[in-house]
């Protein structure tokens, strides 16, 4: 069986799956979509009350949660849409222009 984690842009055609079939679930995790970002949210932890409103509003998986607390952004999936900033009732998220925080 050929696993998605073993396939990359250097894999020869003989080692790919017919029709690009994927034989396991959840492989979108391996796909870096954060590179599409043109604006970037910045997390200010000191202002965050961990109300968790931003988490379900994030259209992707860019806000990890651990032990009831939101962590800093996972920029691998963040496309910079800014929805989290709009729904945050506190000054815990600000947006900066550009794909990276300078």
């Amino acid at each position, binding site marked *: 069986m050929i696993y998605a984690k073993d396939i990359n*842009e250097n894999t020869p*055609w003989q080692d790919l799956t*017919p029709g690009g079939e994927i034989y396991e679930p959840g492989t979108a995790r391996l796909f870096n979509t954060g590179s599409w970002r043109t604006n970037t949210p910045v997390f200010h932890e000191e202002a965050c009350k961990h109300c968790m409103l931003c988490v379900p509003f994030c259209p992707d998986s860019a806000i990890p949660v651990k032990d009831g607390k939101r962590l800093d952004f996972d920029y691998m999936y963040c496309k910079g849409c800014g929805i989290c900033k709009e729904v945050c009732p506190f000054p815990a998220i600000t947006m900066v222009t550009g794909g990276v925080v300078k």
Partner: protein
Amino acid sequence: MSHRLSGNEAIAYAMKQIDPDVMGAFPITPSTEIPEYFAQYVANGEVNTEYVAVESEHSSMSVCIAAQAAGARAVCATSSCGLALMYELLYVAASCRLPISLVCVNRALSGPININHDYSDSMGGRDSGWIQIYAENNQEAYDNFIMAMPIGEHPNVRLPVMTCMDGFITSHAVENIELLETDVVRRFIGEYNPEHYLLKRENPLAVGPYDLSPYYMEHKVMQAEAMKAAKVRILEVAAKFEKISGRCYGLFEEYRMEDAELALVLMGSTAGTAKAAVDKLREDGVKAGLVKTRVFRPFPGQELARALAGTRAVAVMDKSEGFSANGGPLFAETRSALYDLKERPYLIDIVYGLGGRDVKVEDIEKVFGRLADIAVTGEIGPLYTHMGQRSKGGDR
């Protein structure tokens, strides 16, 4: 079993014998009688097939793609603009490597609106990645369909198979036909056991993912290799089929080609007419022969070149236009195949029979007459001409 059936009846009966899991069916014009006859078997409880009636051929092929991906055997039948409406999905089926079986009853494409036979429909799908096998008569249409699944489903192939027959000439004309016993057909087809399918619980599967430039090329190479492998598999299946039926099939049929100097390359029911012309000419001492194309995809280029190597003049007869301004699709393939021969025969293309325009034994004899002139003079004249149309000053 000896019977008398139309081509459509023969295919519907073959489907009944196979008892496929799913049929994507659009059972009105421009489809064929095949879904209609098959619907009766479904209604009578004679098959276990899930018969999915849909609103268009785009949808009937979509049903087949989904069903086959789920792990089912899916069949479909269509014709003419129905196939044209399916083109987008033909590519999806082939690139997802789903061995769906489709019967195409070849009829002209609009416009002008016409319902009669030529190959413009399936020739429009010739680059879609489907295996294409053409029949001369009802018997071959039945036999080809029974061979479709063992060809397409083989792990080295995994490609959809389109078996084609001539609209009305074959699909509606009633002919004598030898049918196999149903248990023989079932054993020949066997169970469909794909390694991966959507309903396999222990192994979740995603089919048809987005495939950008770092991967698309590699997947197309895999598809191209599968089409090459199909040639071998088609012959393996034909050999097995001969054992159960006594009927022998190759990539094409050579008729009186052993010492032929003048030859035709054509496909479908015209072969019957052309065989009569060849026989007649042979009686007059003319070394005439015929190659009847059976497998058009994969195209048996090297084999065809060998078959034509000893000839002096060859006419390819195309029953679809193609509008390349350089000859029809069968001509393009044949001419390309002959390029590697050290000594090539003279070659011309004749486009004929469009929209059901009749072709008679005398018409074929005229083509051989032209080949005889070419063989003597070495002058081929116009490379690509039409035959059978009304013209001021004759066919040319």
